[in-house]
């Protein structure tokens, strides 16, 4: 066994070229996902900057109407399918095998194939800007009949390319789902029972189950939409006895759980970072773990709250109002648990902690506006206004993106073997927190006043708040600069770290930074509880190879 022990050096044995190729190592794939998704985040952000530049003034003066519609469509599509989903997958890919004491995922080759579909999806979507008919222009929901009007008459049009991209993204996601669920069920180290797994693994488990059993509804809807668009079928043609509302049901049956696919891993990150920086166990671990599943299950039955103003009958509005209200309960339980973890802790406000605290505050606000919109009579007023846009940006940016940043900072030393620069991290946090609130808070009052979403021009009465929002957006754009500079320079020349710079619990911290290629010299036998802070254990940050 001495060979393996000797080969565990503190620096990675993975050559940099592997990151640009077809590697089956989950750690390499994880980094590939993270870097690729961040590039698309910047692109999607750029599209948002143009949108916000247009909305700085009430009238149309930056782009033309069809380009504007293409911009917000692509912004939403890119942010969801090419930033949040793959970024979450990047962290999960890197961490899950390490956290459960495995050497890799169950299907390493499938893992790589799933990753390489992501750049293809991105290239397809970006290339569609150059089609003569332009991009898809019907929003990321792509509701028929408007999404399939195809004024150009071309077979290969923006909507067609969009549907193709969504289909490929779906295949990639299902591959990921199969991989994660199999891995978590079958590859936990001896002694790692379900109730010894970190909450992060629980959240990935439930999120991936949602992908597996809800995404295919979107696949079905997209196939039928493609047929209506390109082959003259009438699934959703209202004048030929088709029904566009069926599309909405199928779309939202997936796309509501999709927000839990996005949010659950963020909750997982909070659940790992807060205990580490409070030096306290996660309060109510078992309940927080199980609540991930409860959120997933209840969240599968709330979808029609996106359709309160659609052609939905009474009983449907009432039912989905009740179910949507219900999902607030297990979600609230998590928030209370995080706050209780802070209580009487020994708090260290390092960058990962700041991002998670900021994320929790913004999620608290988002959750409350969410419960408001669960109330059907109120939602009928704010449906399709900026109030909704404000709400969901507090979730996808204020909660999930903040969590991803927090997670990147937290596990950066593990992934790279080097520490980032803490002061720049703090600057990044404050610029982001300020920018996000300036950008997304004003959307609530302006939505209440009646400003609709997806508009390229608006009534002058909404100007003031829109200026604030646009300035906030530009600040948010700038806020990515200290992050990029920090990550790049620290990755190249940051201070080297040992295996556990944060003195955190979790199997990933027992191996070197970065971990050896095979993760563990020997598969550990797990005996301790998770989050065993305060248990008088000597937790060592060493420069030696893993124990």
């Amino acid at each position, binding site marked *: *066994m001495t060979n393996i022990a000797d080969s565990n050096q503190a620096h990675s044995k993975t050559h940099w070229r592997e990151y640009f190729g077809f590697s089956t190592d989950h750690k390499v794939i994880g980094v590939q996902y993270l870097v690729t998704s961040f590039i698309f985040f910047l692109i999607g952000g750029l599209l948002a900057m143009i949108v916000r530049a247009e909305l700085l003034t009430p009238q149309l003066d930056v782009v033309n109407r069809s380009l504007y519609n293409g911009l917000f469509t692509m912004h939403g599509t890119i942010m969801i399918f090419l930033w949040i989903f793959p970024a979450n997958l990047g962290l999960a890919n890197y961490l899950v095998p390490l956290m459960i*004491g495995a*050497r890799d995922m*169950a*299907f390493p080759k499938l893992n790589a194939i799933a990753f390489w579909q992501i750049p293809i999806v991105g290239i397809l979507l970006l290339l569609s800007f150059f089609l003569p008919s332009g991009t898809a222009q019907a929003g990321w929901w792509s509701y028929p009949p408007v999404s399939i009007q195809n004024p150009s008459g071309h077979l290969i049009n923006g909507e067609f390319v969009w549907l193709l991209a969504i289909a490929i993204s779906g295949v990639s996601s*299902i591959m990921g*789902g*199969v*991989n994660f*669920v*199999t891995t978590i*069920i*079958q*590859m936990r*180290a*001896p002694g*790692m029972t379900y109730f*010894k797994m970190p909450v992060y693994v629980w959240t990935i488990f439930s999120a991936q189950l949602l992908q*597996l*059993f809800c*995404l*295919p*509804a979107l*696949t*079905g809807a997209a*196939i*039928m939409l493609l*047929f*209506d668009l390109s*082959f*003259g*079928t*009438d*699934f959703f043609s209202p004048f*030929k*006895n*088709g*029904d566009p509302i*069926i599309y909405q049901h*199928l779309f939202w*049956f997936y796309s509501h759980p999709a927000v839990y696919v996005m949010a659950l891993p963020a909750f997982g990150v909070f659940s790992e970072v807060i205990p580490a920086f409070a030096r306290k166990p996660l309060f109510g671990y078992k309940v927080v773990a199980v609540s991930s599943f409860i959120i997933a299950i209840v969240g599968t039955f709330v979808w029609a709250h996106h359709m309160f103003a659609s052609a939905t009958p009474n009983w449907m509005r009432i039912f989905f109002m009740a179910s949507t209200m219900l999902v607030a309960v297990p979600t609230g339980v998590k928030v209370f648990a995080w706050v209780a973890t802070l209580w009487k802790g020994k708090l260290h406000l390092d960058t990962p902690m700041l991002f998670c605290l900021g994320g929790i505050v913004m999620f608290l606000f988002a959750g409350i506006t969410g419960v408001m919109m669960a109330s059907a009579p109120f939602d009928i007023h704010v449906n399709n206004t900026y109030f909704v846009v404000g709400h969901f940006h507090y979730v996808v940016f204020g909660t999930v993106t903040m969590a991803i940043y927090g997670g990147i900072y937290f596990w950066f030393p593990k992934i790279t073997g080097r520490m980032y620069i803490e002061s720049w991290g703090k600057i990044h946090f404050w610029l982001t927190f300020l920018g996000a609130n300036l950008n997304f808070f004003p959307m609530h009052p302006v939505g209440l006043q009646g400003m609709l979403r997806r508009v390229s021009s608006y009534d002058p009465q909404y100007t003031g708040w829109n200026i604030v929002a646009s300035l906030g957006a530009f600040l948010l754009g700038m806020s990515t600069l200290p992050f990029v500079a920090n990550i790049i320079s620290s990755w190249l020349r940051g201070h080297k770290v040992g295996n*556990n710079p944060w003195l*955190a*619990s*979790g*199997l990933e*911290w*027992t191996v070197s930074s970065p971990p050896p290629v095979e993760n*563990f010299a*020997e*598969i*550990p*036998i*797990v*005996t*301790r509880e*998770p989050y*065993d802070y305060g248990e008088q254990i000597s*937790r060592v940050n060493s420069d030696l190879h893993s*124990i």
Partner: protein
Amino acid sequence: MQQPSRSTNNSHQEAHQDHLPLGFLIFLLSESIVFVSFFVTYAILRLKSPHWFPDGVTGLDVSKAALNTAILIFSSVIIHFAESALKAGKVITFRRLWLFTVALGIIFLFGQALEWKDMPFGINAGPVGATFYLLTGFHGLHVLAGVILLLIMYIRSLAPGNYEAGHSGVSAASLFWHFVDIIWIILFLLLYIW
């Protein structure tokens, strides 16, 4: 921190687990949801429609489809015996029954193509055409994929010692075949019997 404790025999416990059975099952369950979305669309469209079939058409040809259904169900029985044969170590029997399943699958596909040729309405004939061709077409694609998968497994079976490490590939392919059969039974009941 989960302090790993060492055991010198640990490395021997790292026998490679076969993840294919669980992974493939999960994949099939997920894939069924696509069909469920098609079935639900079909059901809602049919329930809401005052005149489902075009003028002059009273219904689908149940008898031909019933024959095809019988062929597919029979093929599932055959593949089950094929798998049992392999489990009992009778590789020659397994191969014969496996090829028989392939043949039945191809006959099914021919039957489906013949039905399409003689259909009184096309894919553009409103929701009835759209749902019929999408469902039978999508299902047919899965039968074709199954036939190809079975043929690949057959070619592999010719290699000596192919099953020393177990036969999860054959089990997976067989499971796929049963899945294709179950989907067809639901489709038959919904489209032809209703």
